[in-house]
């Protein structure tokens, strides 16, 4: 019940005009709100567990040479292995999650009918849009960090615990340690631009077309999948491979060089273990990814441009007629 008071105009007086609402305030409250719900933590757990599972299942990414019935294997956490593992497997499904995390950042206000309460406050469009988007982006980046952590963790585990091994060299010595530098670089190239781009595409279209947000999420998901499947055809040519936003052509671009280095390093008299040692050395050489960094920085920038466009095109007003309601 509402208490008896003499007035709601209480002793607390304040000057409203001197306090503009900052992006940071919207960002921190939205982040707090999302972290207070269960769904983010469930998603985070799922991302971490799936990363560990995929890294374990993909601990040997390729059979570089079949020698006397056994494989000389490429490790998933070496420089060459991570070029295959991270864009080719982890980012395929992780990218599908991204639009689901950002598409509803504003749309849900319209659906939940919190939109009118917020839009009746002095909150500016830019603070609202940027604050919300940055909160969603931060959540995506937190999940991406879990992928990085899971990859590194499984790399260390595979190096030190033989019992984790599937088909591959039979002794502990032959699983190379994770190449932290390569893992970090490939994570930066394959994860961050994708997060910036897909998060903003989902956010842009859903915010401007709130009634179609479900359709938009599905469309981004299917579009990403199609792009991933067509990447080899679209970007397979070496000169334009670095424009592949999915990075699924990343490994195939550099794999032949690694293979060539391996075969030039072995001799016919070498045993399987000796061959594996050669490969373990060769597979840790990180190719020059400067061009990939540049093009992917552009993709990330495109994401920010889309969010800026969202600010300009977003309307505070929900034009749905409200008449005839009780």
């Amino acid at each position, binding site marked *: 019940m509402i208490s008896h008071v003499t007035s709601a105009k209480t002793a607390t007086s304040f000057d409203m005009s001197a306090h503009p609402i900052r992006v940071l305030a919207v960002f921190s409250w939205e982040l707090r709100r999302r972290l207070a719900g269960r769904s983010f933590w469930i998603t985070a757990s799922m991302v971490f567990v799936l990363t560990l599972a995929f890294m374990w299942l993909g601990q040997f990414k390729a059979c570089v040479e079949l020698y006397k019935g056994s494989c000389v294997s490429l490790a998933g956490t070496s420089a060459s292995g991570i070029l295959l593992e991270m864009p080719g497997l982890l980012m395929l499904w992780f990218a599908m999650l991204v639009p689901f995390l950002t598409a509803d950042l504003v749309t849900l206000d319209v659906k939940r009918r*919190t939109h009118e309460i917020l839009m*009746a406050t002095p909150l500016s469009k830019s603070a609202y849009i940027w604050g919300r988007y940055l909160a969603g982006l931060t959540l995506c980046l937190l999940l991406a960090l879990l992928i990085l952590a899971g990859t590194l963790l499984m790399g260390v585990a595979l190096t030190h615990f033989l019992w984790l091994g599937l088909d591959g060299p039979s002794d502990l010595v032959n699983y190379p340690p994770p190449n932290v530098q390569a893992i970090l670089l490939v994570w930066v190239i394959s994860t961050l631009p994708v997060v910036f781009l897909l998060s903003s595409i989902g956010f842009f279209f859903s915010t401007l077309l709130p009634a179609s947000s479900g359709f938009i999420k599905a469309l981004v998901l299917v579009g990403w999948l199609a792009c991933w499947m067509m990447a080899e055809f679209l970007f397979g040519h070496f000169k334009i491979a670095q424009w592949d936003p999915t990075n699924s052509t990343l490994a195939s671009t550099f794999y032949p060089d690694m293979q060539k280095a391996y075969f030039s390093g072995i001799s016919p008299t070498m045993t399987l273990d000796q061959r594996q040692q050669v490969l373990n050395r060769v597979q840790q050489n990180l190719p020059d990814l400067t061009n990939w960094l540049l093009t992917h920085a552009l993709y990330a920038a495109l994401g920010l441009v889309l969010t800026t466009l969202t600010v300009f095109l977003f309307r*505070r007003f929900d034009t749905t007629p409200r008449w005839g309601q009780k």
Partner: protein
Amino acid sequence: MELVCEQLGKHYGTIWAVHDVTLRAGSGIIGLVGPNGAGKTTLMRMIATLLVQTKGSITWNGHDTRTHGAEVRQVLGYLPQDFGLYPEFSGRQFLRYIATMKGLPRGVMQKRVDEMLELVNLESVASRKLRTYSGGMRQRIGIAQALLNDPSLLIVDEPTVGLDPEERVRFRTLLATLNTDRLIILSTHIISDVEAIANRVIIMNKGQIHTDTTPEDLLREAEGHVWTVVADAATAARLQTQHQLTALVNHRDGIQLRIVSATRPTENAVLVEPNLEDAYMMTVRGQKAVLTV
């Protein structure tokens, strides 16, 4: 303070939701009433800068709300008819969140939130998640958020929906106490709420202002038009089809009808003092058509 709407209109497709509305208001409480689809919510959303008008203008203290929307929102408190809350937040967190969005200075925010929680009697459940709140509690949180910034322009759309009778009376009392140095626009279907607190009544119908008067004048117009009759079932059924009814109560000795009519409806009809609901019914009866572009 002054709110001025001139020749205000909004149409959706070919239908005018609000058409040629002109009004001028200073501090006080305006009771905005009318049948469903009369244009009340559309009018209030335009004043609250949530909807752009198709034609006409709205000014607040001389400033056009289309160009000075941010200034209006600084002093605006708005409770929509149908609103949602964030289930992840507790009541206190939600109010602090809205206080931040309203730009309340950090130094006074906590105090103001506590005051509002006390005002709507939700201090004891302030730490509970909003998903656990009942309909009445949610409505009270809605009222609290509208008052957080001590608004000069308070627009409340069906604020007492979901409140139990005791809460409703207390909310009316609260609104009445706010009636200084501020303009309150209260839209409701509960005419007794308007009768209790409003000093001006605007009846909207078909997107236009049908009547703009004081409750006293509206009541005066209905004097001599309100009757009570105790009748058997057959007579009651006949009277219902012939006259405008404002109440029907079953008694041991028959059915008591409250009828609005210019002439005595039956021999045994007794002339009674009108209330605002009778006056309202008398004003809006028989008008259902809508305007088209």
